[in-house]
């Protein structure tokens, strides 16, 4: 029997800022290479979302003006989305969407914009952008694996006491440049500031999400090993670049 999963791609026209297409491509290709029938269902603002049918919700990053539009629309679906998350629906949220999953966002003006309250975190606008290559140590696996990406955010995010980060910062700024935490994990929800695109150079995270989606559908979640030599070479080069003097000297720009 052919395994099948549905990925709901939330507002692809609005939330597509940092090469999020790369994340979708990584999921699609790696499913395709294993003969898994992966369907991407684009969700536009105003569409009905049947969370029952969703095996992985993907939320990308948007620019400020689009982000506000999306936040207003998404808040209407908060109760159903919350129920689905508690029931184990996998969610992968990058940048602006990661912030949106939190309790609130405080703008530079002091205005508080409410979030979806799915992750116990809040974000404060900063005047200095945290920009550069980043490497984190991620305990989703034993032993932990590294994840490499690029971060670019003015918002500083702080996690509540119970909320686990996605990883510990080895290089870069992470959520706020202070506490060495990057991203957040709650049940099957992963939020992160890392793009780059994140998934192509971290194939184990792509496979983690695919396995979670298969499992959520009640299907066999074992994934055949693939030859990932190119991805792994790119991963190691990115770790090297993030640690290089050339990169560190310019990564703290405002």
């Amino acid at each position, binding site marked *: 029997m052919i395994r099948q999963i549905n990925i709901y791609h939330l507002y692809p026209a609005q939330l597509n*800022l940092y*090469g*999020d297409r790369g994340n979708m491509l990584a999921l699609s290709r790696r499913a395709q290479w294993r003969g898994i029938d992966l369907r991407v269902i684009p969700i536009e603002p105003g569409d009905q979302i049947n969370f029952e049918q969703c095996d992985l919700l993907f939320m990308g990053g948007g620019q400020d003006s689009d982000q506000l*539009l999306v936040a207003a629309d998404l808040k209407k679906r908060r109760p159903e989305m919350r129920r689905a998350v508690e029931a184990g629906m996998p969610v992968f949220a990058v940048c602006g969407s990661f912030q949106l999953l939190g309790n609130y966002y405080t703008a530079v003006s002091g205005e508080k914009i409410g979030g979806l309250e799915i992750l116990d975190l809040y974000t404060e606008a900063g005047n200095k952008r945290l920009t550069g290559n980043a490497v984190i140590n991620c305990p989703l696996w034993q032993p932990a694996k590294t994840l490499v990406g690029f971060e670019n955010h003015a918002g500083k995010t702080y996690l509540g006491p119970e909320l686990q980060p996605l990883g510990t910062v080895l290089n870069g700024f992470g959520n706020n440049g202070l506490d060495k935490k990057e991203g957040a994990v709650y049940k099957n929800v992963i939020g992160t500031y890392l793009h780059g*695109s994140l998934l*192509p150079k971290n194939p184990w995270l792509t496979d983690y999400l695919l396995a979670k989606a298969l499992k959520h559908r009640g299907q066999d979640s074992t994934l055949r090993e693939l030859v990932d030599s*190119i991805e792994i070479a790119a991963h190691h080069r990115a770790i090297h670049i993030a640690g290089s003097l050339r990169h560190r000297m310019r*990564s703290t720009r405002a």
Partner: protein
Amino acid sequence: MNAVHKEATKAGGLRNRLFQVKKTGAVIIGKALIAATRLLGRGGTTLPGRLAIRIKPDLAELLAARLLKGTLVVTGTNGKTTTSALIKNILIDAGYSCIHNQSGSNMSWGVASALISSASWGGAIAADWALMEADEGAFPKIVQDIRPRGVVVTNIFRDQLDRYGEIDRIQEAIGRGLQALAAGSFQAINADDPSLVSIGGLGDKERLTYGLEIELAEDSFQNTGRDLKTCPICKKELTYERIYFAHLGHYHCPSCNFRRPRPDVQLTGVASNPDGSNRLEINAFGRNLSINSPLPGTYNYYNLLAALTCSLALKIPEKQVLRTLEAANPSFGRMESFAIGDKVLVMALIKNPVGANEVLRTILKTAGNSTLLVAVNDKIADGTDVSWLWDVDFEQLAAVLTVPDRFSATFAAGLRAWDMAVRFKYAGLDLTKVQVEEKTGAALRRALQATPAGGTLYVLPTYTAMLEIRRHLNRMGYGRPYWEDR
């Protein structure tokens, strides 16, 4: 008595004379550094200006004020280099002398470097015009510094997000630059770009617009990134009657009545000539003109209209302008050809998804036994964030690779060669034909070797990778050093 000296005596006093010393000192140090960096075989287009403005922050302003006719600035995400090269050629053919920061060093210190290198050791400048290409982020500062008589803004696309954050911020920077323009100056902007047209606060400045009025085949690539989906005024969805590429087209907002203005300069028709050039029908300020243009691609229609609008605003005779435009060659790094033995190397800069997609589309139109080299660096001038590679439709190459005798080999090079290789893999390219070589020199040699006799090697580098490849080509005896371009 030269102009510089006059200024010093006019104001008088020890403080002013010290100022004068500081300025001349800054020019001398700048010029000495330019000489030194050229001896080292590099362009000397950044560091000298950087240091000189550290010593004398208003140096560019003082030097620019010496020009006989004034300054012009070209900014926007894509097309700055081609547009400013066209305007420069028009000015020169019309009998003016013109200073130009043509090697793409378009931050405020690059502008200062260009002025310093044209100044005498005493700080005098004998030129009619300075035409400066400005990075969008540096645009407000450059406008303040050199007070242009006219500016051209080509478009706003997603570009190097690590430097500017988001498109909203680029638009804000361009808006600030336009606000800073002096009364009586003009701005020529792209009417097909809603994010430019929505910039208000014109005051007594003259705004000229240009745009396309032609039918084009519908954009077949879904992901060229329509960056602006919402009305820049009221944030509701924008309706498009025509899309030329990305968010450029004929648009209006059903909610707030924001709409595309009727352009002053319009491209009304395009027909292909037997020699590969295009015959363009243009209506400029109500007059019908036609031009045989050798420049390929829709993006070059915009560049040509921008240069035409600016030149006519400067009251340069129409006949003169058309003659120069017909003779134009694709400019520095934007689509250059080199003959290398019995092979041809075609180089086109890539720096963001929209530009790269246009380049891919253009090179895929030309058939032949060809090879491809994509060189990606992640230095500041390239953009340190390489995630934009995922928004480029490299999938176009995979479809072509199944056809025999097209790209017989594909090379990934540069500091981010492995990122590029991953991109090729997920684009579905045949990996047995993909080779990775980080060093651009070695990659260039291998790619040339892999190119069959009579074939073409297409080289698509990011900005600093292009500089490296040019240095390698120079060493091999092909092409002039870039600071010696016309």
